[in-house]
């Protein structure tokens, strides 16, 4: 293995292996498809497990049937969704080694630890206690049974934290130093890796967005039932809707606030990404905020045909001062060339610029939707057609926003796979493009088929509505009624 080092950056060269360009592109598509698909499901599971845990708690406290039915109805939706999240998550654990072996060799000393800890601390907790929750209805004491769903929720939180710490290290590689002789980055402080400020921001931003994603599903489905079947299960869905609206409003607002400070933080640690988010070509002291820019969004020569701007707002957003200086793409490109050598250090602007706006726009939509819903409920009005369709669209808004956010954060880091240390082109496995074609097509077809199955099943459950409160099938030694398990 030959290692080239320039300015602290490492390029791994294997003289015997020429990696075809196709392989790199296909490996990128494969990672994007499998990861985005996985992350459509994960936020729903995180959010719903929180809502279901709260519903279950409310049932144990009040003993009211409606909360039991809510727990079991939304719990079944959670289980269907969780299964596909678990299934597609298996790929995540192994695909770094499969298609990104050179990346794995370079980062393993640091990146592997949070992944292993995620498995040990989070996956065991989630899977074991989800099994206990599903099957424990007829044998666990009531309060212990309640604790199992909270353990699942804690598991999802831990999982989110450790995987985001791993990703944050790719964005801001702290607690590590490159060892040119070994050709890899090596750990200097696990504490710094696990308390990376980028990870803390990402956790706050992602987890609140996940709660909003689960809430949006509850809002959309409940509104649809209330509008469509006015008299059937009115109480059930009215209560569900209120829960969904409250949770989503709080979570969406928190996502927006954390996101703002996250963006300010990234302006200091990943200025190129944020300049690309705004398509800001030149460094400016009173930078305007671009709302919509039309044109090629090309890097060089800079070209924007039309650009609707708010004067000086970007400076304020990024630096808390209307006169603050915001670095532009051209200056950063020149600086990076000086530091890392010749190359193109500007990410694909059309993707960063638009994914950033789509994410923010849909986040605002969700906050507005839940605020409007609460306002409508407060005035005691029935759910109308317009709100219903806005709420059904609202189911998809956070899913698209979550994906756009990840596209932004990952594409915005390019050409780096580990910011400033390793380029994506140097991380791919030395595989033939034919190999990648086979796996890419396999995963895509499989995932498409599973999407059809999951949607069919989910729509059946959602459209069918809640079941009657189950009849107790016995009494525990402590006198609690035992209920049938949730599956099998």
């Amino acid at each position, binding site marked *: *293995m030959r290692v080239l080092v320039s300015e602290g950056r490492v390029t791994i060269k294997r003289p015997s292996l020429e990696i075809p360009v196709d392989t790199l592109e296909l490996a990128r598509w494969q990672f994007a498809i499998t990861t985005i698909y996985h992350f459509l499901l994960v936020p729903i599971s995180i959010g719903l497990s929180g809502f279901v845990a709260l519903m279950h708690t409310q049932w*144990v406290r009040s*003993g*009211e*049937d409606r909360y039991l039915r809510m727990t079991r109805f939304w719990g079944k939706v959670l*289980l269907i969704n969780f*299964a*596909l999240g*678990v*299934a*597609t*998550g*298996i790929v995540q*654990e*192994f695909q770094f*080694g499969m298609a990104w*072996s*050179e990346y*794995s*060799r370079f*980062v*393993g*000393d640091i*990146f*592997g*630890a949070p*992944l*292993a*800890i*995620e*498995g*040990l601390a989070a996956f*065991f907790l989630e*899977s*074991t206690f989800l*099994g206990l929750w599903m*099957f*424990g209805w*007829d*044998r666990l004491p009531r309060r212990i049974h309640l604790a199992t769903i909270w353990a699942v929720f804690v598991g999802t939180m831990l999982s989110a934290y450790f995987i985001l710490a791993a990703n944050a290290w790719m964005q801001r590689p702290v607690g590590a130093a490159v060892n040119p002789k070994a050709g890899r980055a090596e*750990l200097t402080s*696990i504490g710094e890796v696990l308390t990376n400020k980028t990870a803390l921001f990402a956790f706050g931003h992602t987890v609140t967005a996940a709660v909003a994603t689960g809430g949006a599903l509850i809002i959309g489905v409940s509104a649809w039932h209330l509008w469509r079947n006015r008299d059937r299960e009115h109480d059930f869905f009215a209560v569900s809707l209120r829960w969904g609206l409250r949770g989503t409003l709080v979570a969406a607002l928190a996502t927006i606030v954390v996101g703002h400070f996250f963006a300010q933080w990234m302006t200091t640690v990943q200025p190129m990404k944020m300049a690309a988010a705004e398509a800001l070509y030149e460094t400016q002291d009173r930078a305007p905020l671009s709302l919509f820019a039309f044109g090629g969004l090309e890097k060089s020569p800079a070209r924007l045909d039309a650009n609707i701007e708010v004067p000086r707002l970007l400076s304020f957003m990024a630096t808390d001062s209307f006169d603050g200086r915001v670095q532009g793409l051209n200056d950063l490109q020149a600086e990076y060339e000086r530091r890392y050598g010749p190359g193109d250090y500007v990410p694909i602007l059309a993707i960063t610029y638009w994914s950033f706006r789509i994410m923010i726009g849909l986040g605002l939509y969700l906050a507005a939707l839940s605020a409007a819903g609460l306002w409508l409920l407060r005035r005691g009005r029935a759910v109308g057609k317009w709100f219903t369709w806005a709420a059904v669209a609202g189911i998809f808004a956070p899913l698209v926003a979550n994906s756009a956010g990840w596209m932004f954060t990952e594409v915005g880091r390019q050409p780096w796979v580990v910011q400033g240390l390793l380029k994506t082109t140097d991380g791919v*496995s030395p595989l033939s493009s034919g190999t990648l074609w*086979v796996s890419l097509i*396999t995963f895509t077809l*499989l995932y498409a088929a599973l999407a059809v199955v*999951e949607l069919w*099943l989910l729509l059946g459950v959602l459209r069918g509505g809640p*079941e*009657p*409160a*189950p*009849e*107790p*099938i016995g009494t525990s030694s402590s006198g*609690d009624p035992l209920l*049938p*398990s949730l*599956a*099998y």
Partner: protein
Amino acid sequence: MDLQDLWFALIGLLFCGYLVLEGFDFGVGMLLYVVGRSPDERRRAIKTIGPVWDGNEVWLLVAGGAMFAAFPEWYATLFSGYYFALLAILVALIVRVIALEYRNKHDGARWQRRWDIGITVTSAVPALLWGVAFANIVGGSPLDGDGVYAGTFWDLLRPYTLLGGLVALLLFALHGAHLLALRSEGVVRERANRTAARLWAPTVVAVAGFAVWTLADAQVVRAVAVAGAAVAAAALIAVLPMQRAGREGWAFALTAAAIAGAVVLLFATLFPNVMVSSGAPGTDLTIAAAASTHRTLVAMTVVAGFMTPIVLLYQGWTYWVFRARVSAGGPDEVGTPLDVLGRRPAGGPQGS
């Protein structure tokens, strides 16, 4: 024993946990149509692993993550090298999760039959391929000097490695039959016991052949490897009297010990390499060359030392909670969610 060796042993332990636990899940899946002639009998068979299979599978994810953290070169070489084998395992495991979880979420004969077939196939395929993969790691596959796999998928299939696959299939089937016998009642239990009795002889022959072949081909025959083989052999032989005496719990424990013994045999033979090369001498990937830094291994050791007892405690508790046999009737029987719909609420749970 330094930290690198300790982590090599821990990876072995994680795979041991994975194969012992998911081994019986695979076995139950493979034998679904053998022990269950009707959809309801197959449902009862699946229910024996229902609450625990997902937690069992996490052992694999943790083993993969720990490999990445402790031996990045091993992780990178193995999974990029055995690409198609791993792809097939992943596809099977994905479909299996969905099959197990979705089978009973809709009530339809065709729906359930399709997933039952899916469970059978996706239990057999990874069992076979894990056997093939481990036989390749230990028996040698083409690696170049950089620790990069230099063969194709077909290079992974040789008589020795195929025997490894067969051993995994048979051992897991026997293990699964023992679990079914232990955890079910009535006709499912009877068939499981009969199947286990029939599987015993071929399993003993295959495991013995594989163990001898492994030791005969080993670069160095280590005492630990021989001990692993001896444990596996003794455990398997002791299975027979336990089966005859109807001691289902003992039979199950013995197949668990046999799988553990086989894993010890493989890892001890592999030591001090993590992957044996069939190419030029000196191209083996060694523990030292594959390992992370001392600092990373220390951090991982602290985390593992703290977390593992907790995990074992609550996983053990789960098995205790679900220790009762899955019965044909009884109060905890709910065929599908639709059965719940059919029941009339009689007052529901009372407030506490």
